[in-house]
């Protein structure tokens, strides 16, 4: 039953059609919200059930294997979490809420298709499906202050995005010109013989650029702070976490083109990793808007993820997968707090979190654990991921890089700790109490448990990630 291989995506597609129907009626967002949540939960269930499916679809351009299904599952979980905790969708006008849900679901559909694509053109189409939906989501923010910052963000986002895509397409043309094929399974053996050719390296590096943009690796990070700030909190929560999953998946796929070894690509990774970590962490130190801060911290984390890729080994890829899953959970925990602290959907500064432990103890705890986890303090998932990435990189002989990365941990702790300080030490006077719905509480407890459990029992996830990576090597 070939159709069953496509079940999670198909379900998302049907769900988005349903939401499209709602958007034609005068729905105020409630029924489309229910439909969106049902769709994403359905996708979670279907991805989970189909975790061990294997097969090829659409003239072999679309591969279903453990690797793709694992990422689909995480994408679906991430989308569900964002939908669940952004209960009221405060930052979006009522009349366009159905459209908002529509594009959100379509975007994650695009991401799910992306991780299964094993052919350059279908990869490109899936990527654009997801990106264009995001380009539309950003300016949908309710313009409360009349500053139209969301428009600025959207323009920046689309320009940078289009440029990155352009570079990527250019690189694809090189690969096609060299090998005469767009299929990964045919590209791999041909590129292995060509791996030392400068053209091949340039081509691969350019294709990587498209996903460096998604993952916000230096120097493709310029959109990050402004888009994070300009988009509504819910949109940012999505942009900051879910597309990065797919970006890592595709970076791994493309890096496998030059596996087992290519010094030039490794050097590119090393330089970009160091620049991302330092740039992200140093800029984050001075941020006042917490979304901007998380944006810069995301750049630094992207640099960390490259540490796993540059080992060009199965365990390295597996740790990168583990790290990005952990990053998803930690990031969602932080954004959950931001979305709920923001009263009318406005941006949240770090000072707005003052005395959160009195206004909403559970949110404060979630924020603290999210921050400590992002900072890489044990026993949370951020530490385990960092530790394994460093081990892998040192095993690959990158001593300088590892020392620089460790130094970055020490820099980063300052701004993460500042947030914890504000939530626990500042006085709550002058700030309103925060209402927390039962659903949000459940999600935040779930995230806390996930952060801790993934941190102290990583063996299972690592084993799954390893066998997923084995499948694509």
């Amino acid at each position, binding site marked *: 039953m070939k159709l069953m291989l496509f079940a999670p995506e198909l379900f998302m597609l049907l769900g988005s059609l349903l939401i499209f129907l709602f958007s034609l009626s005068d729905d105020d967002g409630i029924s489309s919200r229910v439909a969106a949540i049902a769709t994403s939960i359905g996708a979670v269930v279907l991805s989970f059930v189909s975790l061990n499916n294997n097969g090829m679809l659409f003239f072999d351009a679309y591969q279903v294997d453990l690797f793709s299904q694992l990422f689909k599952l995480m994408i679906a979980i991430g989308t569900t979490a964002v939908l669940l905790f952004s209960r009221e969708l405060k930052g979006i006008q009522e009349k366009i809420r159905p459209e908002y849900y529509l594009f959100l679901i379509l975007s994650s559909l695009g991401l799910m298709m992306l991780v299964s694509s094993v052919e350059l053109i279908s990869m490109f189409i899936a990527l654009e499906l997801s990106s264009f939906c995001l380009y539309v989501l950003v300016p949908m923010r309710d313009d409360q202050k009349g500053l139209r910052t969301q428009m600025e963000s959207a323009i920046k986002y689309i320009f940078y995005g289009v440029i990155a895509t352009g570079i990527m397409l250019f690189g694809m043309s090189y690969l096609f010109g060299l090998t005469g094929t767009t299929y990964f399974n045919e590209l791999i053996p041909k590129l292995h013989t060509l791996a030392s050719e400068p053209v091949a390296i340039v081509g691969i590096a350019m294709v990587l650029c498209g996903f460096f943009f998604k993952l916000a690796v230096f120097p493709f990070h310029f959109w990050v702070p402004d888009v994070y700030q300009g988009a509504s909190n819910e949109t940012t929560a999505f942009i900051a976490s879910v597309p990065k999953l797919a970006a890592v998946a595709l970076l791994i796929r493309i890096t496998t083109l030059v596996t087992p070894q290519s010094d030039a690509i490794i050097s590119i990774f090393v330089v970009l990793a160091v620049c991302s970590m330092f740039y992200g962490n140093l800029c984050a130190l001075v941020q006042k808007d917490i979304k901007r801060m998380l944006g810069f911290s995301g750049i630094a984390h992207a640099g960390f993820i490259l540490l796993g890729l540059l080992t060009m080994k199965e365990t390295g890829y597996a740790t990168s997968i583990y790290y990005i899953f952990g990053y998803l959970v930690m990031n969602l925990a932080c954004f959950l707090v931001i979305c709920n602290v923001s009263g009318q959907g406005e941006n949240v500064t770090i000072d707005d979190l003052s005395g959160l432990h009195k206004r909403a103890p559970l949110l404060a705890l979630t924020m603290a654990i999210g921050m400590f986890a992002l900072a890489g303090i044990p026993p949370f998932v951020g530490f385990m991921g960092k530790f394994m990435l460093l081990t892998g990189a040192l095993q690959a002989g990158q001593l300088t890089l590892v020392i620089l990365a460790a130094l970055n941990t020490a820099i980063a702790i300052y701004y993460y700790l500042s947030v914890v300080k504000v939530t626990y030490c500042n006085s709550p006077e002058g700030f309103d109490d925060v209402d927390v719905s039962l659903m949000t509480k459940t999600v935040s407890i779930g995230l806390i448990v996930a952060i801790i459990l993934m941190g102290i029992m990583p*063996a299972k996830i690592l084993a799954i990630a390893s066998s997923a990576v084995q499948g694509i090597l």
Partner: protein
Amino acid sequence: MDFLILNEGFKLLSVLIFLPLAGALVALLINNDDASRLWALLVTSVNAFISIFLYSNFNLETVKYQFGEHYSWIPSLDIYYTVGIDGISLLLVLLTTLIMPLCVLASWNYIQTRVKPFMICLLIMETSMLGVFCALDFVLFYILWEAMLIPMYLLIAIWGGPRKVYASIKFFLYTLAGSVMLLVAIIALYLHTGSFSIPNMMGQGYSSTFQIWVFLAFFLAFAIKVPMFPFHTWLPAAHVEAPTAGSVILASVLLKMGTYGFLRFCLPITPEATLTMMPYILWLSIAGILYGGFTALAQKDMKKLIAYSSVGHMGFVTLGIFVLNVQGIEGALLQMINHGVTTGALFLCVGMIYERTHSRELADATGIGKHMPIFVTFLAFFSLSSLAFPATNSFVGEFLILAGAFMHNKVVAACAIPGAVLAAAYMLRMLQKVIWGGVNNPTHTLTDLGTREILVLAPFLAFVFWIGLAPQPFMDVMHTSVAHLLDQVGVAQGPAVIAQVIGK
């Protein structure tokens, strides 16, 4: 697992480590201040009681790690859950378990806001501290070593004094920055030996350069924790702002982790580098002893005074460790326990004054002796112990350290002697002011210690005299392990004559 004696029956160490954590989880469900106090007291007391079995079942003859447990944890990276204790860690484990119930008792009235989270932080602290002393797998050790920062940070940042924000952030940043390179060193060692097991890393004959780098990474992390001069600046801030229980935990247990790290990791894993770096560290210790003494002499704030005195006392401990002979190391180990007992008790005393006068200034505490005779009796004994008065615990420890130092190098030892004199000067100065100074101080309508407070201080006093008058049981426990440690470093030793003389 030839270094480990597996514990077949009751998993004593795991129970000790995880009982407080389980207690903390249960405490989440309690919604009453008094109940959470009682619960924390119960959990820590049960833990203290269980830990006594460690002492009674401890085998004095073997150099292997006892009460061992060994389970696979993260197979893909060869990470195991391995715990076990030897003569070096046993006393520190006991110190931790015995001091925790007293910390809970001491916070009974002092903490009035958010009692439940406070008790949860204390319980999590206990888990991670015990884990650090028992861990025989480097990853396990590092996780607990770092994880401890979070509850300690919260203890200072939430329940601390007026400058708590500054102090807590400084504490966190300093300790974290110190230990990032430790992580790199751990990974480098793993890549050399293929396992994270601490005993397997010992005696591997690494190259000299590699040893020096690893030693420096270790040293930075542990020297900040001790804290050694010039890495000590976080300590006075953190001590002064922390709540009483926090100060006691900091002084009694946390500082010991640095010196424990030297003994457990630096000496046996990088023996060659230890010998190379020894002279520099000895002089840093001397600097710490003298600097701590002089600075303490100038303090007006009692907590600061004791904090700086800690810098001096810990200088003695590192001095004892790095003279690398039996007397020095046994003295250092004993002095670690002594410092935990004496300084912990002194912080409790200051906390008791603070509860009454709401000031830590020495000037506001003058002439208390007239109103609080029982209190000043305790204070006097602890102060005498702090300046290493004969018949108190610190005398034995400091004497052994100085004896070891003289055997090693007379100049070094001679330079440490003024530290002992300085200790007498600053402690007697404080004592004189508190007991006899200015009786016309207007704030004094003070009540003397209640039963709870006497109960808190009495065990400390018992240990002051027990160790002071009959140190032999304590020395016996550590002797085999210390001799083995010195074998690992490669400095042959004759019989420890002085240690035995003192014991009798």
